[in-house]
């Protein structure tokens, strides 16, 4: 093997590879940590967000398991046992003070009707239905409505915003003006009118929430695409012959997905609020169906005499709203 000579007269043998393992160290703080991992680390540090996540998880699991396992049917009516006060063994004995015109009287329906085979944890409603399983079933329905509306808005808004942002120019201008005009119609009006046309029910509520929800998503998606579309890696992909479709969905979408997920999380409390609000006003789910809004509405009608019909669904709603908002805020901060 001929020895290669360098210009200065050195040969390759004059050099050796410097191996200084002792001096080298891996930067443990930042090395190879993906964005997702960073976000996760940041999220875990956020106490409020962690509290929200834990509460939300418990609520979701409870809303799935309790109606299935409580052993009491959700719609089983029992007029004899209407307005039985809550009884929790060891804490509440199932008696309630009912105000009369001449004063107050303590009533214990468990003793009066000799109910001893079961304890109604949250009491019963006007028709003698168990409020404990109804409350969690209601939360399940409310969550499902919110999730479905959020997902559909996400798909529509994401595509609209991404296409608008990616194509740019005149198309973008027109598409944005459409959103501008549409978003100036108050949600309340859209929802009210829709409910006049459609039959009240779960699907109409989902459509109503979705019709106004997709615009927020599209605005976020468009802004994110604008940030990314002139990056080098997009240029590289295009140079290598990638089509617009490929670039949009394989190169850009994975990188903006986190902000879309955050927005989905933000939209969930809004949707829950709208469902309860509509049901309370009488526009939402029909009487007889079970959702947090309906339970609160029915509880409100009876709350002056039997406050326990109102308090549990209200507490569940408040917990749900707070935890969902905390998770959304935490995600926002973590991905920033």
């Amino acid at each position, binding site marked *: 093997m001929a020895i290669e000579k360098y210009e200065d007269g050195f040969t390759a043998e004059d050099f050796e590879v410097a191996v200084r393992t002792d001096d080298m160290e891996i930067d443990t703080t930042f090395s190879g940590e993906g964005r997702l991992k960073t976000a996760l680390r940041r999220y875990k540090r956020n106490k*409020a967000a962690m509290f929200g996540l834990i509460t939300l998880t418990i609520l979701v699991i409870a809303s799935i398991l309790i109606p299935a396992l409580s052993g009491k049917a959700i719609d089983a009516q029992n007029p004899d046992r209407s307005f039985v006060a809550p009884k929790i063994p060891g804490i509440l004995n199932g008696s309630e003070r009912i105000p009369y015109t001449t004063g107050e009287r303590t009533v214990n329906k468990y003793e009066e009707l000799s109910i001893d085979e079961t304890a109604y944890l949250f009491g019963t409603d006007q028709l003698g239905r168990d409020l404990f399983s109804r409350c969690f079933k209601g939360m399940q329905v409310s969550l499902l409505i919110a999730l479905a509306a959020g997902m559909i808005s996400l798909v529509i808004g994401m595509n609209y915003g991404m296409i608008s942002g990616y194509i740019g120019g005149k198309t973008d201008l027109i598409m944005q*003006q459409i959103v*501008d*005009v*549409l978003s*100036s*119609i*108050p*949600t*309340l*009006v859209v929802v*009210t*009118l829709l*409910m*006049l*046309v459609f039959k009240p029910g779960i699907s109409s509520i989902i459509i109503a929430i979705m019709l106004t929800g997709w615009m927020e998503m599209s*605005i976020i998606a468009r*802004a994110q695409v604008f940030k990314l579309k002139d990056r080098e890696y997009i240029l590289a992909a295009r140079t290598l012959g990638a089509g617009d479709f490929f670039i949009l969905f394989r190169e850009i979408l994975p990188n903006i997905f986190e902000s879309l997920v955050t927005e989905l999380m933000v939209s969930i*409390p809004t949707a829950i*609020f709208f469902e*309860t*609000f509509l049901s*309370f*006003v*009488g*526009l939402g789910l029909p009487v007889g169906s079970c959702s947090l809004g309906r339970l*609160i509405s029915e509880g*409100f009608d009876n*709350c*002056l005499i039997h*406050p326990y019909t*109102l308090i549990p669904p*209200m507490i569940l*709603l*408040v917990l749900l*709203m*707070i935890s*969902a*908002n*905390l998770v959304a805020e935490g995600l926002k901060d973590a991905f920033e």
Partner: protein
Amino acid sequence: MVKYTIKKILISVLSLILIIFILFMLMELMPGSPFNDEKLSEEQKQVLYEAYGLDKPVIYRFGVYMINMLHGDFGDSYSISVNTPVASLISTRLPVSMQVGGAAMLIGSIAGLALGFLAAFNRGKAMDVICMIISILGVSVPSYIFAILLNYYVGFRWKALPLLYDFRIPVRTSIMPVIALSIGVMGVVMKFTRDEATMVLKSDYVLFARSQGISEKEILFGYVLRNSMIPVITVMAMLLVSLLTGSLVTERIFSIPGIGALLTTAITANDYNVVIALSFVYAVIYVAARLVLDLVYGLIDPRIRVSGGAGK
């Protein structure tokens, strides 16, 4: 500025026309016709159609409809108060809602600004945490929950304030609804003020002002207050919507004779003319408020009118 103003006004007008169009289409598509009695002959129907202008082309009727709407002629109420013009139903109720909503907006904004600054200046301390908890409660919990709680405890249990609204003592009876509605406003304003004020406090020009020996008080009023108030203005339109929505339920709970309660009653009574008129009124309030805020915002911050709209 002129171009920006014209553009914003055009968009507002366009959205109003669109809203009227949607309302008109709803009326058109509503099943049934007032004259589908089989006893009527073709000629009689013809006469009736001509009398009510139903033989004219759709576009002509839309024009008439739009002019009527803009004149405040919404037709008569069907069932709530039979044969009363809807406009007069609304005009007696609108001021009540405006007073309650306006008071809630004002009190909520002032309280939110004050607490937001308090939190920003005490960042990380106990005060900040307390303010943040209040703000999270205000943002997440719907206003009607507060309304129900106030109604039950303050009104029913403790008997501290009248349970329901009474037009003879409007101030005393509006205290609870105003508080219930203002908590949400306060929460949102507080959160925005805190974030903005924190950012301004960290900025170089505040650091520079401090290095010049300018007093904390002057920094607060001369620098932080002004610069952090601008973004807060943008949320006002959003807040107005949540107030309008909230008023629907709050008015039902306290039986306030406002437009929110009217809308709820009209929906349950299927009084289409009232529902449509109120939808129009709500839309006008919202579009007008958005326009005013956009213009004010453009006036305060020149960067906005160049880029074409308030921050989304």
